[in-house]
């Protein structure tokens, strides 16, 4: 596709990269078909091709982002389904990242919007703050439906309350811990313990560590490592994201080399794998590239070493592919292969490529679209009559919870069949 940047503009390396991405796009429109927001809203402006065009125009004219551009960019889930579909190999992810930074730098959001974003950015990445906030939210949960009005703010608050768990799990603080292998030590890995996950899904980390230990792998969670930075990254808060990346790269590069950096929250995994790009001009560039190269989703890592130790009950598992896994990291078959190896009957919903609407904080910031995508995904999953829905990303699990079918991280199922405890979520399932 033609672009109209001046020579001077192109001297800016960021613009040069954006130009290269835009030049790859041939405007064929294939991406529109698999974009959850285009399918839901039916407007070119809410499709990847439309957004690419909006970004192109905004960057070419080097003008501040307008309300319309922000609206359509905010509606993008960053599910990256478009990148799976694109025949031309357009790097949409880095283009939309660039646009978000541009928006963050040039657009002044309405006050309530700004406050909410600040609050989320100040709470979610920090497990203790998150826990405190969730406890508060739990108290407010029964009143969610009583919040008056249909303004976006009210809808967002309501969405937040609805997402809070009914029962608060036991606190988890894994920073600075080392978990020895059971038996002969065959490997040593770092685990990204996650931020929100420690607060709302501690059983996932527990199962991950137990399973790896059982398979002879030592698991280290360096004290200095923390939130991956995805949340602020997707808000266009470039500096904050880079800080998170630098801190983690330093933490994982310190001391004896790890065999791998394991991620059991695929939304974070996509960002870890991008540290190399994010810090490409940084003093830590080489280390960041090495961290990205070593980052593996738990399913990738388990593929070669996983062995179940017991016979699985006749449970039907509907595998929900998290976008960050299937599109962001192009991991499509490993989780299903593992679940089948564990002995489960694995089924998949119609339109597996479509996002469930979780997408980080999307279900809070875009409650209407998120709710519609959630409904669609749950309907298609339930059409396959599963006993349980399994995914590899805490965000999806939270989004899909509360609709009669239990949701569980697939690593919990794998750990169960390797000798671990039955996942708590499955207590009602007797087979």
């Amino acid at each position, binding site marked *: 596709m033609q672009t109209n940047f001046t020579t001077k503009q192109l001297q800016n390396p960021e613009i040069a990269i954006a130009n290269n991405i835009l030049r790859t796009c*041939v405007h064929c429109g294939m*991406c529109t*078909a698999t974009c959850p927001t285009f399918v839901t809203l039916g407007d070119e402006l809410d499709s990847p091709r*439309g957004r690419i065009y909006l970004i192109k125009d905004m960057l070419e004219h080097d003008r501040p982002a307008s309300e319309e551009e922000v609206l359509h960019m905010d509606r993008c889930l960053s599910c990256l389904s478009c990148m799976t579909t694109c*025949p031309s190999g357009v790097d949409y992810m880095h283009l939309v990242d660039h646009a978000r930074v541009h928006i963050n730098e040039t657009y002044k959001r309405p006050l309530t919007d700004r406050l909410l974003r600040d609050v989320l950015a100040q709470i979610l990445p920090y497990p203790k703050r998150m826990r405190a906030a969730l406890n508060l939210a739990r108290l407010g949960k029964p009143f969610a439906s009583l919040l008056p009005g249909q303004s976006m703010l009210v809808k967002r608050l309501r969405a937040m309350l609805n997402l809070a768990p009914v029962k608060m799990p036991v606190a988890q603080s894994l920073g600075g811990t080392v978990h020895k292998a059971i038996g002969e030590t065959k490997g040593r890995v770092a685990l990204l313990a996650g931020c929100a996950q420690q607060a709302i899904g501690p059983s996932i980390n527990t199962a991950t560590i137990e399973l790896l230990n059982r398979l002879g792998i030592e698991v280290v969670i360096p004290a200095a490592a923390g939130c991956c930075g995805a949340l602020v990254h997707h808000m266009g808060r470039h500096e904050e994201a880079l800080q998170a990346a630098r801190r983690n790269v330093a933490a994982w590069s310190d001391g004896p080399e790890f065999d791998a950096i394991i991620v059991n929250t695929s939304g974070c995994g996509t960002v870890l794998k991008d540290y190399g790009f994010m810090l490409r001009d940084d003093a830590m560039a080489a280390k960041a590239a090495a961290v990205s190269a070593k980052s593996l989703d738990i399913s990738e890592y388990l593929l070669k070493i996983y062995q179940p130790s017991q016979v699985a009950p006749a449970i039907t598992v509907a595998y929900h592919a998290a976008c960050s896994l299937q599109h962001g990291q192009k991991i499509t078959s490993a989780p299903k292969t593992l679940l089948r190896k564990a002995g489960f009957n694995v089924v998949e919903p119609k339109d597996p490529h479509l996002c469930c609407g979780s997408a980080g904080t999307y279900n809070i910031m875009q409650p209407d679209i998120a709710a519609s995508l959630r409904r669609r995904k749950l309907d298609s999953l339930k059409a396959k009559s599963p006993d349980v829905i399994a995914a590899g990303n805490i965000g999806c699990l939270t989004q899909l919870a509360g609709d009669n079918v239990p949701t569980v991280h697939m690593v919990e199922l794998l750990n169960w069949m390797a000798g671990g405890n039955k996942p708590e979520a499955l207590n009602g399932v007797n087979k």
Partner: protein
Amino acid sequence: MLQSKPKLNVLEKRAEIIAGLKAVLPERAVIGDDVSLKPYETDGLSAYRQMPLAVVLPENEAQVVAVMKFCHLHGIRVIPRGAGTSLSGGALPLADAVVVGMMRMNQILDINYADRYAVVQPGVTNIAITQAVQDEQFFYAPDPSSQLACMIGGNVSMNSGGAHCLKYGVTANNLLGLRLVTIEGELLEIGGKHMDTAGYDWLGLITGSEGQLGVLTEVTVRILRGPEGARAMLAGFASNEVAGACVDAIISSGIIPVALEFMDKLAIHACEAFAHAGYPLDAEALLIIEVEGSDTEQTEMLARIRDICAVYNPVSMRVSQTAEESAAIWKGRKGAFGAVGRISPDYLCMDGTIPTSQLPNVLKRMQAMSDDYGLKVANIFHAGDGNLHPLIMFDANDVESFHKAEAFGADILKLCVEVGGCLTGEHGVGIEKRDLMSVQFTPAELDQQRRIKTAFDPDWLLNPSKVFPLSGLSAAA
């Protein structure tokens, strides 16, 4: 590209018109600000661009009628748009026109297996019809390469083909009925759910009329039961000419495969990088040949085809063994145009059809033109029916390169007409080939077509500046 002159009285009243549209449509269905209109300035042929006056996104037939009545009353031009995947600029706006986007009318209304039809809204994608009926092993046959994204309304308007139309026909052969809103806002019901219709073949006339006669609001298509199975084979050859001769030999033998596709070396490499389908990278030309039936039937048919191919000393022959392999082969072919985006920043996709016996001759002459113009051309086409898709590669950021590509494209199409073919086999005339129409038609033939348009659209408000050359327009209108 020359456009008809915008109506000043319409441009001047833009704010009023947008307000008027908002009065007859829900607020969310009207787009009127310049930032938001920008992505609507072009379609699948991004070399041509024009900002529209406004865009409307109706959600039902009543809203389409309301828009048409409003536009007719105020003398406003209307550009129908589906998914915006046209490769001929069929949905290119005009400065004084309202784009009517049908993307929100995307419901499947009725499916009947006993009588074998499906009733769908125009914004349903081509593949969504097949997906809706595939649990019963049925499918909707026409399969344009953009089938993932392109919408049935656009398919009808362009009479889209696809790789499998060698056996199953193009869109026109797979339709039963339409609902169409005229520029006056009148609803016409054409055909129905039965096969033949008494009176003039309006269904045939409207199919492929490129939005010149009305705006579609409902389409009834035939659905077919799929075969027991299908398998594709790949045959690589040492030259384009040899592959072309092999195509001729297959058809002459009395075998009509379901699909018979051709790719040259550039295309093979681009598609392989995208689809990893195991295309032979050492071949100069590749045929993808698909057959259907039971396993035994497929094997027997493929054996016959292999025997024919063997005469032409193929550099490789491979029969896909699994459904996944076949899927990868087709993924490469169907993503071919986009995949060329990996080896060239821009391309123009031509769409002429030639008599199949002319394949070797035309391929040779096209190569000579490519050398003359200094522009590379990748060839991807439906060989079984002679529908060529030369992709001329150029750099849109280099004006001279673009003009050369346009001229090269025009020369290819003139060549197609010269050897007994036509300008466009399935992409439509649109804006792109409009000025070449006089190569294929005499003034009297063009005038007859213009008069038919006038019968439907007396004021030429529907998708003007497309299909018919602007010169001579006043004579008919």
